[in-house]
């Protein structure tokens, strides 16, 4: 599979009243054509900021990409002008947002909102654009599309709206879709339908998806690979199987333990104690130290290097060090 998007050493900061928030602190990952990468983490860990940074939709001021590169098919997005970036948005990369209730303009018909994207980027007549919109509505499973085009967002349910938002995002046939918490604001049954829709669309259009979520259930269903983010850094990345069954980082394990699982019987849910560090002045060492059950002196002082567990599985944790393994054995004997 060909590499579609590559993010290298991305840093994003926000200047606020209280100081500078270092929201993303050196993130690397890539995504290949047609695959689904999930970025998982607690709220405030920088996953949405990363998504917005790829689209260069970070409000500046106060936000700023201070360091790093984002490359889409040999095109360095980070060095594109705002005007050049506009021909990438919606055409090469599309984005959908968490709350379908607010992502649609309440005063415009959904037809208008669907069509404006294609008409901006492709030389289509009004009729062709409308035909395209109808086709998209059918793809995402909206019944009676012809009448529905003339209606306003408030006349649709939450699930239907999210379908429309997805149709809007896909109408120019982008190669990458960034979905920022696409199911969080929806009912559980609707969530499942939307996830099925993602699978159906991916089969039909071969679009790659970056799925931003805090919900491991969503991830288990549709992700190919998973990146776990904590306090502005990716601390572990691997295939779905590797993350779910061979998680290395204590934080990843903690996340998995805090989710109810049907395949493991009689196990108690264990929430992770404490809260993430203050990103105004993030710790110099591993940010998880304060909450980590396996914290060592070194964790506080130095951020761990990346350890390759397999070709696809990478983790940043001092427990990977031989000396830490010895310490663990010693403790176990005692």
């Amino acid at each position, binding site marked *: 599979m060909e590499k579609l998007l590559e993010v290298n050493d991305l840093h994003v900061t926000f200047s606020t009243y209280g100081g500078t928030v*270092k929201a993303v602190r050196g993130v690397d990952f890539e995504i290949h054509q047609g695959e689904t990468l999930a970025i998982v983490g607690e709220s405030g860990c920088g996953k949405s900021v990363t998504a917005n940074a790829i689209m260069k939709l970070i409000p500046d001021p106060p936000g700023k990409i201070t360091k790093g590169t984002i490359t889409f098919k040999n095109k360095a997005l980070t060095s594109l002008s705002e005007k050049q970036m506009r021909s990438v948005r919606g055409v090469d990369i599309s984005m959908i947002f968490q709350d379908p209730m607010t992502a649609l303009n309440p005063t415009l018909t959904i037809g208008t909102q669907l069509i404006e994207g294609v008409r901006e980027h492709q030389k289509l007549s009004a009729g062709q654009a409308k035909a395209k919109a109808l086709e998209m509505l059918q793809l995402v499973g909206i019944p009676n599309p012809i009448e529905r085009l003339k209606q306003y967002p408030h006349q649709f349910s939450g699930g239907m709206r999210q379908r429309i938002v997805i149709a809007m995002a896909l109408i120019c046939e982008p190669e990458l879709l960034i979905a920022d918490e696409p199911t969080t604001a929806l009912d559980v049954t609707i969530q499942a339908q939307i996830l099925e829709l993602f699978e159906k669309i991916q089969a039909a259009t071969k679009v790659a998806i970056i799925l931003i979520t805090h919900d491991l259930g969503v991830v288990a269903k549709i992700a190919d690979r998973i990146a776990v983010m904590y306090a502005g850094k990716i601390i572990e990345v691997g295939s779905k199987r590797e993350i779910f069954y061979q998680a290395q980082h204590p934080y990843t394990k903690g996340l998995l333990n805090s989710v109810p699982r049907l395949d493991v019987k009689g196990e108690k849910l264990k929430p992770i104690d404490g809260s993430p560090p203050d990103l105004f002045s993030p710790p110099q060492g591993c940010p998880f130290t304060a*909450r980590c059950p396996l*914290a*060592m*002196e070194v964790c506080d002082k*130095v951020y*761990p290097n990346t350890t390759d567990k397999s070709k696809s599985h990478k983790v940043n944790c001092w427990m990977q060090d031989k000396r*830490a393994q010895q310490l663990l054995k010693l403790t176990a004997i005692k």
Partner: protein
Amino acid sequence: MNLAEKSTKQLPSPANIPDAWFTWKEKDKAEMQSVSRPSLSYWMDAWRRLAKNKLAMTGLIFLVILTIFAIVGPILSPYDVNKQDLPNQYQPPSKAHWFGTDNAGRDVFTRTWYGARISLFVGFMAALIDFTIGIVYGGIAGYKGGRTDNIMMRIIEVLYGLPYLLVVILLLVVLGPSLTTIIIALTVTGWVGMARIVRGQVLQIKNYEFVLASRSFGAKTSRIIRKNLLPNTMGPIIIQMTLTVPSAIFAEAFLSFLGLGIQAPFASWGVMANDSLGAILSGHWWTLFFPAFFISFTMFAFNVLGDGLQDALDPKLRK
């Protein structure tokens, strides 16, 4: 930020870490539970934000000084407010008369501070009465809810449609202009806006109570009221009050200008401006300038203070 980076570089790179660092870290539960962000109390934080707003602070300081002068200004001056001194008519500002004299030879400096008393009094009284009626009416409507609320809100909707200043003018024509009647007239329909806000806030509190009861927070209730409820509900009310004051001050000046304002022996800024309308054409600018300046600057001060409070008290904006 640079400092932090430097200090990282002075530490050993991940490749050569001393073995001694590979020991379990001692930690106490408290550290784990502590929220890393220092939590300022709501009012402290609001004050900090307000103090940072230079414009709002300028307004606040101006109002404090104005209040002090309104109290002591007339005492400092050797002239009587209403003492006519026709030979000294239209004296330009001088050492004897800092702000000059008006068409009847009265000292503009003295009259300006008397005007400040009237304006501030009218403004604060109107705000206070609006607040009192608004709290009672809005409180009952919001607390009772249901049909009572429905009927009370319909009444408010009808009253809201009444043209405020026209009703005030009508009342003053009938009641006869005086300080008391002006305040009555201004508050007869003025409380409606406050009642609406209070009702909205009370409804919000009711929701909080429901949450509180269902989660049975127990002893922590008072803390939650102090930390969450009051800030969320008092903010809009305080802001509404800071906006009532200047609009009442404007209304008083406006009515005085129409000849429906405070009558002699009182002197309000509006009366002074009205008296000096003719004088401005003959070049006696100071008779208009001082009352006009103080009306405008007082309104300005209240407006910027209101804006500042809005930014400082609105929890939505807090990050």
